[in-house]
């Protein structure tokens, strides 16, 4: 670690209860310039990516956090209880609809899914994955829903823009895996638009 700042930032992220935003780090370290802090963060990120240890530095929900690498979950669950059981298909569908179409009302979710979603929405609210954003300015003033910060944290997303686009997801359906890989390997410079339809990391 070259910079003197990196270990300080590391200790702050390490002790934070939740992901620590760049803004917050700047607030905590007023004696350093924002640019300095940003480059120290980049240095740390690089370092952890290259290291391949038991945990890594990730940017989630607009903040920085140390998290174990998914690779080791079978060891970790030997002594830690998993907090999240499998999501049901209907929970995931509803969550996807809220995530991609927010702000959205219950009626709109139900129209898309073709089934009643009251129970699922309530359970997602209780799990803090979905939150009430307010009321829609139409007759009846129905509640409108959106995803929460916890949603980003749990699903390991930096922000909502990090969600794969629906087009990217559709592309996964359309083309068999091997074809796509071939195209990518053979013709990196071709004009085939498939390249930017690949799933995001």
């Amino acid at each position, binding site marked *: 670690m070259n910079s003197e700042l990196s270990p300080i930032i590391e200790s702050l992220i390490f*002790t934070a209860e939740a992901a620590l935003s760049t803004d917050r780090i700047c607030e905590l370290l007023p004696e350093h310039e924002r640019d300095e802090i940003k480059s120290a963060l980049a240095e740390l990120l690089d370092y952890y990516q290259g290291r391949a240890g038991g945990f890594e530095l990730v940017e989630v929900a607009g903040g920085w956090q140390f998290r174990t690498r*998914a690779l080791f979950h079978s060891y970790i669950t030997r002594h*830690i209880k*998993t907090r999240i059981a*499998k999501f049901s298909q209907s929970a995931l*569908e509803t969550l996807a609809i809220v995530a991609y179409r927010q702000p959205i009302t219950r009626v709109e979710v139900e129209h898309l899914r*073709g*089934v009643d979603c009251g129970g699922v929405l309530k359970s997602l609210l209780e799990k803090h994955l979905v939150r009430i954003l307010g009321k829609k300015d139409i007759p009846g003033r129905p509640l409108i829903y959106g995803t929460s910060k916890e949603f980003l944290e749990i*699903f*390991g997303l930096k922000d909502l823009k990090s969600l794969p686009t629906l087009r990217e997801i559709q592309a996964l359906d359309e083309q068999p895996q091997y074809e796509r890989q071939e195209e990518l390997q053979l013709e990196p410079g071709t004009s085939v638009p498939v390249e930017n339809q690949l799933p995001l990391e």
Partner: protein
Amino acid sequence: MSLEAKHHHDENLPLLDGFHEQYSVHLDKFDGPMDLLLHLIKKNELDICDISIAVITRQYLDFIKLMKELNLEVAGDFLVMAATLLQIKSRQLLPLDDQEEQLEEDADPRAELVRRLLEYQQYKDAGMVIGARALLGREVFERTAVEPLLAAAQSAEGPLEVSLFELVDAFRLLLQRIPAESFHDVAPGDSLSIADCINEILSLLQERETVQFDDLVQDDYGSEHTRERVIVTFLALLELCRLKLIRIFQGNDHGSIWFVPAVAAEPLEV
């Protein structure tokens, strides 16, 4: 298949197991009429954009019939879709007037259904893609330990965090808890056994997750229960601790004392 592809990029292969299990089709467990329709379309190797309504309708209705024969409850949503299918089918069968013909060609009676199916499929796939991510608390973990030095520095001050839903729900639960009219039985000999008291506390913990000591020893109007009742409550709490059924917390020095179940509730099933 959407997720197959995604998984090959991932290093966490164990995820695949969960995925197949979730995706495999159970006859009695479709996620809704749209899900069932997609299944039938796939099974018949039909193109969503050019489905044979006759085939799909017949199979869809057979399926509902089967569910009924198995005494499975058929949700109203499935029946709504049955009606929609029948409506489209009958519109296709109607002899067309010459004048109407031109118009009908533009408006395929299936168009609206096809549009909804395509849209639904997008979100169904999106749900599976996000569900296949390495989730915090499932495959990925944050640090749980707090250093002693830091724990001491922790304070209850600072910004508060809570969601609107929690606020409303707290009020809703509170109203449920309050009886419309509460009468007080003052008859002597109204004694309470420790066992009754244990059950009472456990059921309180089940509905509220945490119970404050004050809640246990005060009645609805904030005045203390009888001396006997307080003693029995205390003995019940000691017994619950001994049985390792509850854990005790104190918010801060001289703060309220809280009880929580020692064993966390069932893992979160959304």
